[in-house]
């Protein structure tokens, strides 16, 4: 059990002196997660609204696909994106493999079905009187869409926080597409995996502690959003 206490002591030391490798992993994790989430939100929000609000042939099938993708193994996403961005792949010329943008593509693919499915579900669950009320108050079709999204803002915020939690703790995509390069593409999760495999519990625990703190703040945010949504 001694290595536990040693690990904790080293973790505190690393955090206290702002170890550059640790800080770099935190920065890469947060920035890639944030960018991938923005991309997924940009695509997933209108797509989810379309699937939840509009009735067109094939809608149910698309919902089924979107829901199925929720259980998509992250390693498989990594594999597919790898096949596309590897030097021999169709996007190979862009040199995305083992770069943060390459990781972002994979992470956005992970977050996209989460956002799409949840937004579609929220739109479907929205009280139908909301649409009728907006129409009877004179909303145009465009205003109807905007006001409905506004009405779902707490649900959308919840989805974002959930997707953030899923992406920030992901390890498969970050390893396959980022390559775990120190000071470049090493994220907190890949660093934990590597340091632990090398017996460096200190850095692993330090990063794990930060990850736990992030998860804690995400949960506080979720509770806050849930509370506001009831208001």
């Amino acid at each position, binding site marked *: 059990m001694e290595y536990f206490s040693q690990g904790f002591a080293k973790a505190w030391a690393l955090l206290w002196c702002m170890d550059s490798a640790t800080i770099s992993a935190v920065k890469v994790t947060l920035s890639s997660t944030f960018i991938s989430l923005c991309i997924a939100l940009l695509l997933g929000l209108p797509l989810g609204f379309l699937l939840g609000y509009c009735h067109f042939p094939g809608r149910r099938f698309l919902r089924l696909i979107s829901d199925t993708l929720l259980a998509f193994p992250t390693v498989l996403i990594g594999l597919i994106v790898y096949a596309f961005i590897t030097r021999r792949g169709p996007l190979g010329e862009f040199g995305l493999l083992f770069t943060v943008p390459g990781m972002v593509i994979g992470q956005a693919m992970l977050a996209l079905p989460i956002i799409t499915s949840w937004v579609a579900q929220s739109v479907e669950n929205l009280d139908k009187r909301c649409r009728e*009320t907006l129409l009877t*108050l004179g909303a145009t079709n465009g205003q109807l869409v905007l006001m409905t999204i506004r009405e779902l803002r707490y649900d959308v915020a919840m989805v974002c926080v959930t997707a953030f939690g899923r992406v920030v703790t992901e390890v498969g995509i970050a390893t396959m597409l980022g390559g775990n390069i120190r000071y470049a593409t090493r994220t907190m999760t890949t660093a934990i995996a590597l340091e632990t495999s090398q017996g460096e519990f200190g850095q692993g625990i330090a990063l794990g502690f930060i990850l736990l703190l992030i998860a804690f703040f995400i949960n506080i945010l979720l509770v806050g959003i849930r509370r506001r949504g009831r208001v």
Partner: protein
Amino acid sequence: MSELYRARNLVQVYGAVTALSLASFAVNRGEVVALTGPNGSGKSTLLRLLAFLEKPHAGELIFHGNGGDPRREVTLLLQEPYLLKENVFRNVTLGLVLRGKTKGLSSAFEAAMHAVGFEDVETMSRRSFHALSGGEKQRVALASRLIIHPTVLLLDEPTSSVDARSARAIESAVRGCISCGTTVIYATHDMALLKALGGREQRLGEVSA
């Protein structure tokens, strides 16, 4: 008085159920019409058609409005109103905001809230939708309709689920609206409301499935 609505052979069907079958129906501008009849006679369905929330399955419905978007001239107060996840001020002034109006919202809000019987308008404006009682919700929803000064005010059993005080406030607000020349069409089972608002009674019969 000029004709505002004319309907002929109006039929509305939901799946295998015929919700409304009306041979003829007309309403003049400024008229007050009370839709009465047993449950399932199609009162709410007719109001939804008059509010352009649905298109009729068969028959024709003609609206002679002021030439603009008919949906902006007609408003419907649902039996169980829906308030957006906003405070009372935003809910009441929403119709004006949707019409692009940004000035004079406070004074319009105050007038609409006074019309439905609220006295402490300032405190009410900040209250959240979830903190309102059933009667308050109904009055706030009515205020959000009155503020836009509609050509036609449609009311679906507006006093069916509110206390006596709220019912009287709603009656008084609608009477004020009628005196301003607004066309009011309301569905009700409430004899007290029928007596208070008056108007021509249009009785709808039971619709066979």
